[in-house]
């Protein structure tokens, strides 16, 4: 009898044993850094030992216009970029999803996504800034008279980052929307068509509402990646001009690894962590968990 009880015990524990290695690994890489960052955020840390400063880092952070600027830039560039990508991807998906011929050429639409982000950053740095290709093309069609001073204009620098992001990542939304639309039952569309409904009516009234959960998942994933934008900022603009393109990731990198103000950088990380947790609970859970049960 005791043997049987023990084996039941093991049976109950079995699934926990299966997930334990993965969970422990993730805890080391999230919980440990999280606790470390919280602890460090209450200290002044330069090169030597930590010295306790209480909430000083946070007080300084809340009155730091560069920190608020970085939050604002991240939100601004992210929401503009995401809206453009969403609009283009949905339009393209609308035209492509029932087209057999396009299916064979789909890979062309995906190609930008397959370049390393650092490579894409260099492509756009060269095209906009160093080789002035964009200025040259705009002059050729007569829109401007002389080279654009992109590096000294906040909005042109922001546009550069947005264009690069749209170019590289619209395919991400596109392929997901197409897959979502294609997995819908073709017979419903056919029935509506037989009733005399036009293609765009079918799309707006039947296909699009059915696509909502897919749209939510895709936008959540893309939105998260946009708010962590770092590579392009690091390579192309370094946050300039006048901190106009500095994202929150770049702000943390700069205070931590350029100015070695680690306590301060950790305080910013903690704020970002709290924002992430809120978003995860409110949006991500809805997109991934409840929608599927």
């Amino acid at each position, binding site marked *: 009898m005791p043997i049987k009880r023990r084996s039941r015990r093991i049976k109950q524990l079995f699934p926990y044993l*299966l997930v334990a290695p993965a*969970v422990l690994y*993730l805890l080391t890489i999230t919980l440990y*850094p999280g606790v470390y960052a919280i602890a460090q955020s209450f200290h002044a840390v330069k090169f030597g030992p930590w010295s306790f400063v209480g909430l000083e880092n946070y007080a300084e952070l809340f009155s730091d216009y560069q920190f608020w600027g970085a939050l604002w830039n991240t939100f601004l560039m992210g929401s503009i970029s995401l809206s453009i990508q969403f609009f283009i991807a949905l339009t393209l998906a609308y035209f492509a999803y029932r087209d057999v011929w396009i299916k064979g050429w789909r890979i062309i639409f995906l190609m*930008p996504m397959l370049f390393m982000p650092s490579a894409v950053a*260099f*492509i756009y740095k060269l095209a906009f800034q160093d080789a002035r290709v964009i200025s040259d093309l705009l002059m050729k069609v007569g829109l401007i008279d002389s080279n654009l001073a992109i590096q000294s204009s906040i909005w042109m620098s922001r546009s550069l980052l947005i264009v690069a992001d749209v170019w590289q990542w619209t395919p991400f939304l596109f392929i997901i929307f197409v897959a979502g639309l294609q997995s819908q039952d073709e017979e419903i569309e056919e029935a509506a068509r037989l009733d005399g409904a036009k293609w765009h009516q079918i799309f707006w009234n039947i296909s699009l509402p059915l696509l909502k959960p897919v749209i939510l998942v895709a936008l959540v994933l893309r939105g998260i990646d946009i708010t962590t934008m*770092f590579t392009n900022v690091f390579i192309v603009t370094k946050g300039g001009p006048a901190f106009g393109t500095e994202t929150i990731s770049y702000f943390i990198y700069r205070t931590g690894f350029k100015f070695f103000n680690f306590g301060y950088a950790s305080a910013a990380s903690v704020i970002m962590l709290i924002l992430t947790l809120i*978003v995860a609970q409110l949006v*991500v859970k809805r997109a991934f968990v409840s929608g599927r049960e």
Partner: protein
Amino acid sequence: MNEKTSTLIVRYLILGSWAIFCLLPILWFVSIAIRPRVEIITPTPIYFPTFSLEAWKMVWNDWPMLNYLRNSVVSIFGSVVIDLVLAIPAAYALARFNFRGRDDIAFYILSTRMMAPAIVAVPIFFLFKNLGLLDSVWALMLVYAAINLSIVTWIIRSYMLDVPKELEDAARTDGAGDFRILFEIIIPAVLPGIITASVIALIFAINEFLFTLLIASTPRAYTMSVALANFTGGSDGVIYNAIAVVSLVAFIPVFLVVLLIQNHLSRGLTMGAVKG
């Protein structure tokens, strides 16, 4: 011209112009890779350059490209192996067993995907510094594995949920245990999912930038992605044709593996949430 042809024309016009918008920067970058350096930054851009393999020779002779490539390959493949070893049992438990806290554990794993690298960058840097692992491919391997573990687990879990229970029940009545069912029935059935997860993990690892930048601070541990950012030859400025060469060389394997899993790509990218 009837309505059908005109909608077809509009459709191909729109899709075609987007395809051109996708391709032109790539073609132009290819032209950068095969031109001499003097023709890159000029008073007016040169669109049809003289052909030259200068950059290819420079990349091959002046930089330890094979080292960078080896660092990339070792750290990325190692990380994918770690991920599979950890993720397959975890996904099996999450897909096939009922236990308390299952959904919370699944969501916790997912939520690590939402963590911005910048949040944990400072602590991770010190963690590896204290372990004496800075500047090593081992640290990169461990970080890539951590970044991708959530994705790999969720993708494989999603494929496991699709395996019909009957297959398993039949084996169970034959007396097979949990492990035999996992290895002989579940894993073969979800092989496409395992491959998809590996490819997605591979792409994200190649693309990873911030951690690699912090951990690989000297050429000893450079990967392709970070080596690129350092192709700025000091007073020489950015050596664009060399960058173009390396970018294109790194693009080819990614392109090939994505061709392989084309039909699973959207499912992989959404961590299993969108099938099709």
